């Protein structure tokens, strides 16, 4: 279980997170909703220590403090980030990108079984395995980004805006795949602007506004909350 308590983060004089506390239970999908600039990406950056802000508070993984550990130390504890905007190795092929996912780890030598697992999840990537990542469509790139994270054998995936720039049909497809990965026992923390899709697959959700936690609850209940409906879901 990931437990964040009283986490504050600031960039110089600007507060990005203000005493945020939340928890992500094992094998659940937890969404973090919020508009642009609410501090969602900063929160993921704090968990993986990959942002240059000053942090205070505590982030515990199964009771052990991980705030202050280096990025690679955190990732090798099984918290793997799928960064915003995919961030692939653009000049490498799909398969090379996927293999890189296991490169920094001790299990890296046994990448073949992990690769089979990724291809089983994303059959479309099999046809594209020799294609250079930069030439893929947005949806395929997102699949490679998630696949690369799977290669790291995550206990928990941290997804940062996986729907960014994708057509609605593809967003649905990606989110279904996230649910499927979750079904294999991987905990998911999902940061999204696309609240409707995020609430559809989440077990529990938090709402972040201007660095503060403004609401939380089981996803189906939050989806009916008047404030969430008017601010994030709109009329339908």
């Amino acid at each position, binding site marked *: 279980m990931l437990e964040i308590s009283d986490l504050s983060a600031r960039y110089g004089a600007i507060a990005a997170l203000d005493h945020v506390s939340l928890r992500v239970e094992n094998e659940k999908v937890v969404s973090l909703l919020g508009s642009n600039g609410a501090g969602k990406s900063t929160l993921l950056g704090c968990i993986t220590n*990959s942002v*240059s802000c000053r942090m205070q508070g505590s982030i515990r993984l199964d009771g052990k403090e991980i705030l202050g550990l*280096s*990025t*690679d*130390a955190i*990732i*090798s504890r099984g918290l*793997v*980030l*799928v*960064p915003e905007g995919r*961030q*692939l*190795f*653009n*000049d*490498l092929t799909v398969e090379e990108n996927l293999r*890189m*996912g*296991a*490169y*920094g*780890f001790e299990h890296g030598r046994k990448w073949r079984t992990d690769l089979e697992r990724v291809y089983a999840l994303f059959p479309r990537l099999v046809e594209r395995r020799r294609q250079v990542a930069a030439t893929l469509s947005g949806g395929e790139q997102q699949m490679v980004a998630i696949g*690369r*994270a799977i290669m*790291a054998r995550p206990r928990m995936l941290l997804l940062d805006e996986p729907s960014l720039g994708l057509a609605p049909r593809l967003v649905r497809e990606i989110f279904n795949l996230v649910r499927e990965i979750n079904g294999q026992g991987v905990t998911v923390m999902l940061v999204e602007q696309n609240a409707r899709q995020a609430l559809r697959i989440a077990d529990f959700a938090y709402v972040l506004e201007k660095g503060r936690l403004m609401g939380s609850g089981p996803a189906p209940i939050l989806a009916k909350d008047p404030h969430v409906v008017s601010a994030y879901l709109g009329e339908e």
Partner: protein
Amino acid sequence: MNLTRTIVAVLILALLVALPFGLGQYGYYLMAIVMIYAMVALSLNVLIGMGGQISIGHAGFWALGAYGSALIVTKLGFPFFLGVLAGGLIAAAFGALVALPALRVQGHYLAIATLGFALFVQQVLFEWESLTGGRQGLFVPRPSLFGFELRDDFAYYYLLLAIFLLLAWITGNFARSHSGRSLMALKMSSVAAECCGIARPKHIIIAFTISAFFTGVSGALYGHLLGHLSTETFSLAISLSFLTMAVIGGLHSRAGALLGGAYLALAPELMREFKDVQMVIYGVTLILCVQFLPRGLISVVERVWTIGTTPHATR
């Protein structure tokens, strides 16, 4: 392909062995300088070519190697070889320190940080008169091997060639090591590489340490060649020249490092008549090279070679 590579390597080696014959004393000296510069170019291959880091402070490491070795040989009476090794290790220790700002800043800011380091080293060496002789400079004994002094630059050249080849071999192995590959991944995309569990701080520190070690060894060997050190040598201008030669030779090739070293050592000789216009020519060469030959002079050689050997080239 492997066979042709071997043949090319043997040909280059034969050329390097045969080259100094009949050049005369000054020619031997210049050839020795080529080797010494080429070692620095190798060090920048590691730092910039693989690591994607910038340094305009390599004169600092060069100076630490030169003074380190000179002082250890003269004041502590160590043999030449250990002095050179110690010069490299002293520079390497400072390399690890200079890597620390590189973990926080990149690009222009890192360039300024490394520049600051080089100016700091030069100033400290200048002011620390009791140790370094300050303005007077420092006398450095000639190189010697197993008790035999290498009076002649002709003999010294071959020692330098051997050391260059050793460093080039280390560079090649490093490029294929876990750390070398991690650096190349970080250079492509540091966010992506870190997501793959690659420890950025560790590998950046390793790159700076190795690069500084190579440059320190080069500086040490340079001191013993000149026989006299003064801090003026280790100026901003030489740091910039190092960067220029590495870019012009080619940052992704060990043969390119050799070409870079030859360029920096020999171009002033060829352009002596141009006097004040020299710096303009250097500048223009650099701009042309960055614009049209981003992979350096060596890419021309490689292209000619590819056309010559594969008439129906597919790539």
